């Protein structure tokens, strides 16, 4: 494995849900690369396909959903083509995932140490149970849980929400994965705890060199965290680039609208801007650009599929009419 190759390269990923009402194209051609140790923010509203993207990468899309196209190159290996046993070997080992609701993530009837030790033993049979327990203990310490020895013997319901999420992070880190996919891990937590977890997650990833995909609908969360950001809308990445670049000089009309609707100091007292209209149904996407029904810059050209263009260095965008004047600054 050479360092210049991205750790994870998602190329034109497509995941469709085959429901009674039709085919919902939840992920409709998503691409992004993640370098070693990089933090990528995957941002979008409900239904944009960001969570499904996460599940597609790790191969946990359940019926009626199915990954129908594209590649997910992990250190050169295509995960989409990998068999179930290969995926099992990778999950929790080289690719880990953290879910949104810490209440339901841990099995309520099993002890914490059981749930941690089994993760170690599932991937390395040569490790003894005591070694595995020691590793678990260290991992708990790493995420800032006090008295880890006692905590190991406890049950999930004896922890608070924030603690549980830390345990989940600890579990994700146990086998020192190359990539962690975090699906809205702080959405269900208090704002103050949220801040702590964000900070610690960032610190850990920097220390261990683990890449992180942070999926969220909250721009504020990624603002302090990510290196790069991908904005998703209706199953596609509409804008992608370095965090500061995108947040300061957004180019896609959707991103512009999104950022414009965030209240701030200088907009105090003014009416909040709202993007008119609603997200289209994933069952009936309009031809071409998915945003056209709500876009102030729409015209006839938008009925064709806008491919990925690079209006500025290091920025990807899917739009025929990007805000170039913004990008130029």
């Amino acid at each position, binding site marked *: 494995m050479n360092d210049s190759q991205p750790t994870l390269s998602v190329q034109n990923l497509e995941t469709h849900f085959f429901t009674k009402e039709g085919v919902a194209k939840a992920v409709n051609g998503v691409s992004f690369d993640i370098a070693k140790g990089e933090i990528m923010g995957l941002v979008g509203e409900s239904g944009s396909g960001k969570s499904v993207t996460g599940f597609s990468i790790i191969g946990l899309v359940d019926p009626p959903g199915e990954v129908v196209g594209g590649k997910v190159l992990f250190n050169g290996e295509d995960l989409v083509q990998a068999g179930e046993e290969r995926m*099992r070997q990778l999950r929790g080992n080289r690719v880990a995932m953290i879910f949104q609701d810490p209440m339901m993530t841990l099995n309520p009837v099993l002890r914490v140490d059981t749930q941690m030790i089994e993760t170690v033993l599932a991937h390395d049979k040569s490790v003894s149970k005591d070694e595995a327990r020691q590793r678990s203990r260290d991992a708990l310490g790493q995420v800032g849980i006090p008295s880890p020895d006692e905590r190991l013997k406890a049950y999930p319901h004896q*922890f608070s929400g924030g*603690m549980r999420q830390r345990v989940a992070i600890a579990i994700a880190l146990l086998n020192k994965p190359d990539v962690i996919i975090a699906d809205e891990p702080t959405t269900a937590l208090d704002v103050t705890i949220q801040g702590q977890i964000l900070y610690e997650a960032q610190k850990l990833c920097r220390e261990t060199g683990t890449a992180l995909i942070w999926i969220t609908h909250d721009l504020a969360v990624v603002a302090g965290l990510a290196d790069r950001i991908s904005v998703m809308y209706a199953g596609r990445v509409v804008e992608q680039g370095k965090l500061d670049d995108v947040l300061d000089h957004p180019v896609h009309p959707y991103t512009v609208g999104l950022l414009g609707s965030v209240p701030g100091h200088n907009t105090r007292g003014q009416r909040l801007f709202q993007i008119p209209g609603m997200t289209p149904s994933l069952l009936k996407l309009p031809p071409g650009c998915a945003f056209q029904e709500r876009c102030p810059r729409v015209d006839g050209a938008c009925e064709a599929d806008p491919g990925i263009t690079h209006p500025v260095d290091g920025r990807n965008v899917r739009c025929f009419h990007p805000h170039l004047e913004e990008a130029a600054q």
Partner: protein
Amino acid sequence: MTVFIIRRLMQSVLVVFVMSFLVFGGVNLVGDPVEMMVSDEADQEERERVIRSMGLDKPWYVQYGLFVANAAQGDLGKSFVYGEQALGIIVQRMPATFELALAALLMAIVIGIPLGVYSGLNSESRFSKVIMAGSILGFSLPTFWVGLMFIMVFAVMLGWLPSTGRGETVELLGINVSFLTTNGLSHLILPAVNLALFKISLVIRLARAGTREIVHMDFIKFARAKGLSTQRVIMVHLMKNIMIPVVTVLGLEFGGLIAFSVVTETVFAWPGMGKLIIDSIQGLDRPVIVAYLMIIVLVFVVINLVVDVLYSILDPRVRIQDVKG
């Protein structure tokens, strides 16, 4: 935990007392046993002698008091029909009933849970649909009729298994059990399966419903995301969660098994408590009826207690209410 057990024990004792009162009161209305014991030509003096010897002339509260006092010493009266201690007769026949009930319970667990879990995980497969159809049948078929059919098919037509009665018994820890001999086993199979059929269907449906609900929970997905083998996810993560409702229901149903053995024992002429109670009801043998009911109440109370304790062992959320960190 100990406080919990003590409290439940006290509740149980209270229930036993209340039930004893109800049982006593209720059964005393059952017919007129004097009529049975004396011939029609008996004169008044004869009747009064019988009444006195049986203590039927005393006011009811005295009778109850005597009843309780005697019961505490294990004397629940003499059977009108057999002339022996009612309690003794019942205890003599308990092992047979318990053997049947336990065999049925075992079958319900061993057959029902795997089938139910399989059906829950693969709800669309053909085999799963067969299982579900079978469970509806097992649920709906009246036990006694199935028993009759079993006898008809396996004993009369095919001649594979004996049709009635209990087989040879051997002593195990002082109790006579029949499943340790081949002959005994061959006599045990049909009635046990008959009794178990209803329970198996119940367990299948429970396990299936539980599996379908739990399999979609986040912690199962998380377990898969950790790279655990499917075997471990099902056998450890899923099972432990399913066991809670299954054990609870099974435990409570065990009492039902003992009660329902009444039917199976009648069909297969199995010499247990069930057959005894039917005969006693028809023969108006009051002491036996009373003794039987008291034993049943005791058994139920014990079962409820055991289930409660088991439940708290299986579900740590009930057992431990700790301070959150």
